[in-house]
Every structure is written in C-alpha cells, then in structure tokens.
C-alpha cells in the first residue's frame, strides 16, 4: 500500500515535470503538443476505486493547468478521461482477460489490448481538450486536425514508454 503510494506519487511528479519542461516545448510550427502526462490515468491499477480515479484525474489536470495558465481546461479533459476509463476497459476486454491482480501494462495485457486502450482514451482526452481550449466550433476542421495530430504523437510516446520502462 505504502509502496504503491510512493510509486504513483513519483510517477505523478515525473510525468508533470516531463510535461511542463519537455513536451510543452515540442512544437512543429505551433501545431503539435503531445500530452504524455495522461499516462498516469492509463496506468492506475484496475482495482482503483472509481471515485479515486475521478478525483485523481481531476487533480492531475488541475496540476497541469496551474503550470500552463489554463485553468480548468486540462482538468475538464482528464476528468472526462477518468470517467470513461472503466467503460473503455469493459468495452475492449472479455471477462476472462481481466485478472484482478493484473495491471494495465502492455507487458501484462498484450500489445493489441494496450494500444486499443491507449488510442480510445487519448483520442477522447485530446478531442475534448482541444475543443474546450478554443471554446468555439469556428475552425472545427482545423481544431480536429490539431487534436488528431497531437493525439498521434501522444499515442506513440505512450507506447514507446512501455518499451522503455517495462522491458525486463
């Protein structure tokens, strides 16, 4: 329990720092901004209580918001993402693949499962985030393009992170 607390706190800090110091500065003519920090929500254990999932998601977004001067924008997107996570897991897993001791990692769940899981939740988060950020449907296609492009980068980074951290 304490072990987990330390592990996930560290993950939180590292992901937030990586986000604000590195990934917020990656820009191709201002179009792409990968948001790797949402990896935290993806990696929480399957048996995380639902209320905790929501509260952690909300606080994670709020934390990024404080650094980015974007009050509420990230918080609203991560809350939606945390809300959708149980449904997405139900959608893509059959009864017997869900072992209560397993963790949502690529190594344990298989790459097909993990990539589907990542794509669905990252797309949801990015679409919500980018439309809330512009707060208008004007330039609908352009916002769609920006969110999809950034989502692509985030998905690639998240999959890569699985290879980097959890290789034996």
């Amino acid at each position, binding site marked *: 329990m304490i072990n987990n607390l330390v592990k996930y706190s560290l993950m939180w800090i590292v992901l937030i720092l990586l986000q*604000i*110091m590195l990934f*917020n500065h990656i*820009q191709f*003519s*201002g*179009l*792409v*901004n990968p948001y790797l920090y949402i990896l935290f929500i993806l990696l929480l254990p399957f048996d995380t209580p*639902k*209320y905790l999932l*929501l*509260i952690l998601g*909300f606080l994670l*977004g*709020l934390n990024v*918001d*404080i*650094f*980015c*001067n*974007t*009050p*509420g*924008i990230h*918080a*609203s997107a991560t*809350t*939606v993402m945390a*809300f959708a996570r149980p449904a997405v897991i139900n959608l893509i897993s059959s009864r017997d693949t869900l072992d209560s001791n397993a963790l949502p990692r690529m190594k344990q769940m298989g790459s097909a499962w993990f990539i589907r899981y990542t794509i669905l939740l990252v797309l949801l988060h990015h679409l919500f985030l980018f439309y*809330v*950020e*512009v*707060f208008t449907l004007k*330039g609908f296609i*352009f916002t769609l393009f920006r969110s999809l492009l950034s989502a692509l980068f985030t998905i690639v980074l998240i999959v890569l992170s699985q290879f980097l951290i959890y290789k034996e």
Partner: protein
Amino acid sequence: MRFLARNYFFLLFLVLETISLTLVIRYNNYQNVRFFNSSTKVVARIYELFNSASSYFRLYQINSELAAENARLKNKLQQIIAPEETPPMNFLASPGNINDSVSVDTPAANGPLPADTLLRREHTASRTPANPLMIDSINVRYRFIPAEVINNSINRQNNFITLNKGKKDGIRPEMGIVGPTGIVGIITHVSGHYSSGATVLNRRWRVSAKLKNSNYFGSLVWDGLSYQTAQLNEIPFHVELAAGDTIVTSGYSTVFPEGIMIGQIKKVDIGSGDNFYAIDVSLSTNFMTLTYVEVVEDKDTDEIKNLIKNHLDD
C-alpha cells in the same frame, strides 16, 4: 439516498466537470484569473530553476540579439543628441554653446555631414553638461524595467509568458512587455518576485497598432495559427498599403509608448464583405527564442485613467 449511492460515480463526475468548466468560462475573461497562474511563487520557482539551466544553451543567440539591440539604441541616442546641437534647442539647454554649434556643426552651414563629423558631434554633446540633463527630462513618461523570461509558450491558443520580476521591482498588471526586436505582450498577474502575462499570441488580447508611414490605426489580433504571424484589422480600403510596410504600436493606450515595432505586412487581402482589409503581419519578435524583455511603466497611467473616469462620470 439510494439514488445517490448508486449513481455516485456519475454525480461526482458531474460535480468535478462543473468545477472545471466554470474555471474555463471564468478564464475566458482572462483578467479574472486569480488563483491559477504561473506568477504563483512555487510554480515560478520551478520554471526559473529549469530555465537557468536551459538558457546556457541559448547564450550565443541571446548575446547577438542584445548586441544588435545595443547598436540600434546607440543609433537612436545619436539621433536624439544630434538635433540638440541646433540653435533653438541649445538655447534652452545652455546659452553658452550657441556660437560653437552654429559655426561648426549646423547642417545648414556645412551641407551633408560626413560620418566623422557626426561622431565629433556626439562627443561635443557628451561633454556639454546641460545635454544629459536635457535627455533625462525628455523621456520621463516611460520607464523600462528589464526582466528575464522564465517560461513562455507558443503552441496554444492563448499563450502566456512568465517573468522573473514582480511587484517588488515595480511591475503592475496592464504594463506592456517589449523584447529586443519588438512588442511582446501585457502583464496580467503579479506576485512578489514574479509576474505573468498574455503575449501577442493570445487570442483573448488585442493591441492597438498603426501603419508607420500613414498613421492609420487598427487592432492587431492573433488567429491562433502561426507564432510568426498576426492579423491587423480595421484598416479601411481607401488606405494605401503594400507588403513590407512597417506596423508599430499606436500609443493610444497606456500600455505601450507610440512607435514600438510590431512587424511588417506580409500579405494583404480584401476582407470578406467588410469595408476593411485582411492583413497578415509577420511579427518582428521571435517568440520561440525570447529570453530578455523589458516591462514598460507609463508614469502617466493614473493621471490618464482618472481623466477618462472623470470624463465618463460627468
């Protein structure tokens, strides 16, 4: 109660989402942000820590930009000093010098001046005790406070900048920020030692700008696409302009002095159905590499604001 227990997940989601979206909507009026901004001490400290490391890698570029600005300022200074040598100004400054200046340095007497004469003129000026006083008293309206950029974004729709100077250094909200090559933004929040503000690359902020050669003014906004280009609106069709024309600040507010460089016209289009051009301006400030800036303090701010307020009250 049972309904609450069964749907707590959904209800909690609604509560948190409402909180977030309330923040978003309040933030749409960007002046209202109070608690969440990067001038907060802890946030600014973290940014400063990382910036002090990463700025070493940009030193070459920072130096050359500062050197270029120095050269430009020296040229300006020369322009200010030189006219003072002409009789009427000099009469005000120090009557003792009239004869010298007229016989040696007046353009009317000598025709076009060779470069070394200009140089000599500068020397004469600096030796005359009255002249420096004169310069000091000319530009008292604006004071420039130097600051270092510790965080800056360009890839969002509303970009912000964080500086390492704050209330203790005399910085207050609604002061302008200028960089070595042109306009940067406006201060919106101040803490003790830090401040943060919106840059030109912020869709919620617009700047009063004018064409340098014809003095027609409009407002500069950013469409959120490229960090190198902004849009100038409200310039009517009858104004003559072309690509390459210089755009500067109009001075119609207390944020910026008149004539601060904004950029050059990149492309002119006939706007959609309005009576105004759609003008693309390539910004002179490179927001990607911005490191040192100055905050403009307008000493007449309070006086002007009071005047406008009294006028509206009447």
